């Protein structure tokens, strides 16, 4: 049974459907990503899962329970890091950790957790005096302190420096290795690609695609990009006849093709047949970035359509 089930979720603000029929299921033990541009409805969706917002329609179940009606039971197994929140300015890091640990029946030991998140030196510092990154790390600690079965992290590494971001990714991988299911909202492609088993791409309140990172890349047009400077001109008709070709571009004598592995093979055969040497030949796999833009950006869709 999935630990999180969202079925046809809808939420409307001021007559505008901000979440418009979102469905997905998160399996136990996976890291599930929600990726999407700003304003796509990601936060609204996960806050319905956390029981902070009440859906206008649709069904949300966390370990089979309704997060609004059964709030206390869901809150015991679900740890949350909100996109935006604060603590009392004069509360120290240690007091915050102790306080939040006291809310749960079987909390983690807060000292190693704080150490792990690089807060060991800051235990006596007041929340109001922490830097943005330190606040963020404290909120990650508070999401984990209750020893939850599920953690929901909204914009996990926003505000963190590259070093802390990588440390946090390792932490999340360890957390998952301990059997915790992770629901991760992000707009960092690198983060999604590195951490997520599956990703739901949300755009304008709808699920635009749901697949593994590799699957998303594979299904985007032009998953592989081949570029080279030919030693002699190549006939355009030959290029356009290449199998599974998505696009051709000429610039300063250099040719850039987008396609698949099959396109790569065909272009090499083509060049060999005409005894043309490909200088500075590069074959690059498209990234999640490309796939994401392909899935969410209307302009590229229209341009390639």
């Amino acid at each position, binding site marked *: 049974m999935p630990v999180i089930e969202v079925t046809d979720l809808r939420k409307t603000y001021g007559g505008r459907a901000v979440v418009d029929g979102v469905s997905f299921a998160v399996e136990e033990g996976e890291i599930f990503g929600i990726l999407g541009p700003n304003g796509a409805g990601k936060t609204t969706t996960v806050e319905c899962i956390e029981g*902070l917002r009440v859906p206008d329609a649709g069904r949300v179940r966390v370990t089979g329970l309704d997060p609004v009606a059964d709030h206390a039971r869901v809150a015991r197994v679900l740890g949350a890091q909100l996109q935006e929140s604060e603590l009392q300015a004069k509360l120290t890091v240690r007091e915050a950790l*102790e306080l939040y640990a006291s809310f749960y029946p079987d909390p983690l030991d807060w000292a190693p957790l704080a150490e792990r998140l690089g807060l060991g030196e800051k235990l006596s510092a007041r929340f109001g005096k922490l830097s943005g990154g330190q606040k963020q790390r404290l909120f990650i600690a508070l999401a984990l302190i209750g020893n939850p079965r599920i953690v929901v992290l909204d914009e996990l590494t926003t505000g963190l420096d590259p070093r802390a971001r990588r440390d946090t990714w390792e932490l999340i991988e360890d957390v998952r290795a301990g059997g915790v299911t992770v629901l991760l909202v992000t707009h960092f492609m690198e983060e999604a690609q590195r951490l997520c088993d599956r990703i739901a791409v949300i755009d304008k309140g709808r699920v635009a695609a749901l697949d593994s990172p590799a699957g998303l890349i594979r299904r985007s047009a032009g998953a592989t990009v081949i570029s080279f400077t030919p030693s002699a001109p190549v006939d355009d008709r030959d290029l356009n006849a290449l199998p599974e070709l998505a696009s051709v571009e000429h610039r300063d004598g250099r040719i850039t093709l987008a396609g698949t592995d099959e396109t790569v093979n065909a272009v090499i055969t083509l060049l060999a047949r005409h005894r043309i040497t490909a200088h500075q030949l590069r074959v690059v796999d498209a990234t999640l970035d490309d796939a994401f833009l392909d899935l969410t950006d209307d302009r590229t869709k229209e341009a390639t359509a």
Partner: protein
Amino acid sequence: MSTAVLRTEVRLFRREPGAVFWILLFPTLLLLILGSIPSFRQHQDDLGGLRTIDAYVPVAVLLGMIVGGLQAMPQALTGYRERGILRRMATTPVRPGALLSAQMVVFGVASLVSALLVLVVGRLTFDVRLPKQGFGYLLALVLAVLAALALGSLVSALSRTTKIAGAIGSAVFFPAMFCAGVWLPVQAMPHLLGKIVGYTPFGAAAQALNQAAAGHWPGWGHLGVLVVWILLLTGAATRWFRWE
């Protein structure tokens, strides 16, 4: 109610020197200043033979409640809501209501401590008699605290931001102080004015405290006025309070 949340809020209250001063110390300080004026220590006919300093004890007692309930608590609560502190707590098994009740206990107890300090210092420095009808006095005191907290909750419910809470708090603050008798003790008010003021929460509280101080059971009328206010204000606050 969560004891861990309460303990935290008590700790945080002690870290607010402003709140500690205005709620806990200022009323007593005001009493000391007034008592240092020689004429205020003489018996006055228009106060029914009491000294001005005697008449100001209940005023100082109510002052701590007004500052705590009407100014400090709405600021704290709207700030907690505005900054998402209530929301963060709403994702835990302890609901944000725990934070509201802890705040009420903190400000309620602080104003009772402030009242006690006024009574003790008044007794020790100016020989103000302790209330003769002790139980009646305590009852009036508790009802007054509850009314102040209910009024503060309503201000918190109606204010979207701390700025609005500050503005509403100040707007209600001066009439509340007037009714409590800061400018003119209720005993010295003209008959009609005193009657009108007696229908306000702090006017009724001041009169009930005066009666109990003099050794009478505080009039059921005054206590009834307080109870009605508590119910009305609490009902309105519950109806309009927003968690975010």
